[in-house]
């Protein structure tokens, strides 16, 4: 599938949803507004992007709309990649696509855990790499790298685990 | 009167001593043989080629800390290894190790006892001994142990049957329950030639009852992290371990007695033949362990109920028919 064609088809199906089209070192990237995001992703899935390779969260701290979430898509039919970027301000939800791609389940959980971006409609939004009662989101740029509270002990009393 | 009183006690010490020595060295043999199968040396440090390793292990385990989990059923937890080892050692009493020999003008039989129901004694007490495994797993208060115990009991219930039927065909051929008579009947033709099917069934179900690969369900270390003995430490673990190898030794001795002509053999003395054959079977078990992957639990059950048991039954019937026609 030609990426250009796919993007054209996308613009035809949901007009005005693609805010920006960029080429990042060979990978085509589209920027999508949060409200039309889920629909765009559904359309892209129908267009043949059947694998969600990864979900990347980036903290652009001084920026007003603080976070970027980038979904990396791949079509296993003709091996073309497409990156979909959606921006989210602090406290703003990104619609979850875990209903479309199962791999988004853990990918979004990781972004939630490490950056604190919550995903609306996610079936199981819990911490994944850090333990449950960990405070803060380590990959945020304002997360302290050292200091008094940096090395909190693993508290087995308050942790609500599977038992 | 004095003779009658002293000889069994002396024999008891000699037989248990010698056998436990051999059993301890079975662990060394297993580690060495596995090592060489797997491009390693096995134990090398303690003594020449690790010959003192079993003793070092024993001493080490003796001084290890005893741990009883809080969650364990304490009484049963302590009882389980005792059941395992004592019943396993009891089995040694009825195994005939060699032809009668003459010491100081007296004829001495190389077995401790020859009850008329020798083979049944072994089958029965081997089953009771497996209570040790089951209860050990159950009482640990550990889910892996519990599953190991559950698997162990299912294995015993199932494989006991085909094993008994394999033995039954030998009983039919020999006409006696006594192990000594069974060896006597094989002076000219070994039972393995008369009953090859029973031999195979006995071998397979025996390995299954011993919980050795490929049937090591109760202690599958990669699934249940050692299964029933997961919470055991120190001497209690050693007892389980020793019981396991005692069972292996008894099983090999039983195969020798039932199928390989016991102590019969040319040139060498009977005892030597007996131990040669026994250790060949033990080596076979080790070889199998080194080669074959583990079966899945439900497949193990299927193998027994859908294959081994019908084969063993058919073999019994065939033996009966042949005996009725030609015997």
């Amino acid at each position: 599938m030609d990426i250009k064609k796919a993007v054209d088809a996308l613009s035809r199906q949901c007009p005005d949803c693609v805010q920006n089209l960029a080429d990042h070192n060979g990978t085509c990237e589209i920027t999508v507004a949060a409200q039309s995001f889920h629909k765009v992703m559904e359309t892209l899935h129908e267009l043949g992007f059947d694998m969600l390779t990864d979900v990347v969260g980036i903290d652009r701290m001084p920026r007003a709309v603080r976070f970027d979430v980038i979904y990396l898509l791949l079509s296993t039919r003709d091996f073309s990649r497409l990156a979909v970027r959606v921006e989210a301000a602090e406290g703003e939800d990104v619609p979850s696509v875990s209903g479309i791609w199962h791999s988004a389940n853990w990918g979004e959980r990781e972004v939630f855990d490490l950056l604190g971006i919550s995903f609306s409609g996610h079936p199981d939004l819990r911490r994944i790499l850090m333990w449950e009662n960990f405070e803060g989101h380590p990959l945020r740029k304002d997360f302290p790298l050292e200091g008094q509270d940096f090395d909190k002990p693993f508290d087995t009393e308050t942790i609500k685990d599977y038992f | 009167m004095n003779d009658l009183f002293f000889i069994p006690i002396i024999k008891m010490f000699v037989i248990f001593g010698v056998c436990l020595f051999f059993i301890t060295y079975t662990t060394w043999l297993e580690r060495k043989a596995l090592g060489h199968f797997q491009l390693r040396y096995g134990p090398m440090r303690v003594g020449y080629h690790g010959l003192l390793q079993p003793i070092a292990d024993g001493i080490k385990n003796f001084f290890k800390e005893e741990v009883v989990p809080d969650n364990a059923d304490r009484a049963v937890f302590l009882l389980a290894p005792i059941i395992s080892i004592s019943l396993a050692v009891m089995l040694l009493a009825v195994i005939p190790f060699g032809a009668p020999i003459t010491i100081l003008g007296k004829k001495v039989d190389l077995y401790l006892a020859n009850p008329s129901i020798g083979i049944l004694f072994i089958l029965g007490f081997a089953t009771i001994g497996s209570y040790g495994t089951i209860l050990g797993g159950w009482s640990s208060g550990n889910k892996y142990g519990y599953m190991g115990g559950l698997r162990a009991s299912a294995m015993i219930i199932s494989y006991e049957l085909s094993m008994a039927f394999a033995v039954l065909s030998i009983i039919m051929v020999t006409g006696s329950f006594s192990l000594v008579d069974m060896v006597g009947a094989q002076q000219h033709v070994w039972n393995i030639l008369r009953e090859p099917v029973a031999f195979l069934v006995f071998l397979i179900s025996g390995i299954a009852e011993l919980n050795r690969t490929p049937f090591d369900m109760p202690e599958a270390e990669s699934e249940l992290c050692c299964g029933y003995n997961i919470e055991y430490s120190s001497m209690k673990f050693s007892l389980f371990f020793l019981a396991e190898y005692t069972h292996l030794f008894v099983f090999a001795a039983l195969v020798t007695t039932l199928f390989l002509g016991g102590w019969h053999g040319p040139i060498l003395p009977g005892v030597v033949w007996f131990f040669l054959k026994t250790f060949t079977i033990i080596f076979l078990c080790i070889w199998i362990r080194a080669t074959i992957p583990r079966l899945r639990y439900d497949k193990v059950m299927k193998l027994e109920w859908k294959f081994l048991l019908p084969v063993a039954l058919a073999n019994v019937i065939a033996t009966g028919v042949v005996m009725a026609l030609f015997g």
Partner: protein
Amino acid sequence: MELLGIIICGGAALACALLVILSKNTVHSALWMVGNCLALAVLFLFLNSQFIAILQVIVYAGAIMMFIIYAIMMLNQRQGFETDILKGLRSGRFVLLCLFMICLLGLGAGISPMALKGEMGPHAMAKFGEVDLIANYIFVQGIAAFELVSVLLTAAVVGAVFLARKD
């Protein structure tokens, strides 16, 4: 000497039997039952019937109790459960039970001298070679009854499996 052995084993069997119903934990009950079976087996040995003794060990202590323990372990994972019957037994009805057992013992004491005199008595067994004797009883004299019982048992097993099916 022999009498002492019989008394010890009989006492052990009785004690085990009592503990079967008095144990809180089901698995412990089952274990006492195994002990009971073993004590009975030793009693058989004192009666000179090795074969019956070993059958007692293989069939009851080995196979059947193994089944029962398997079932108990499968059903309740170590949480001992107390049914109403067990609770009742530990209260007043315990006395009743003891009385019942004493009656049974008396009955046994009255009957046993007669039974031990016959062809199946210990002396006859020691003389004859007991496996032959029992085989003769089962497979020659009582073959019809034996086969009938086996058919009945098979039917019972099939029926039980049918009734216990999940759907």
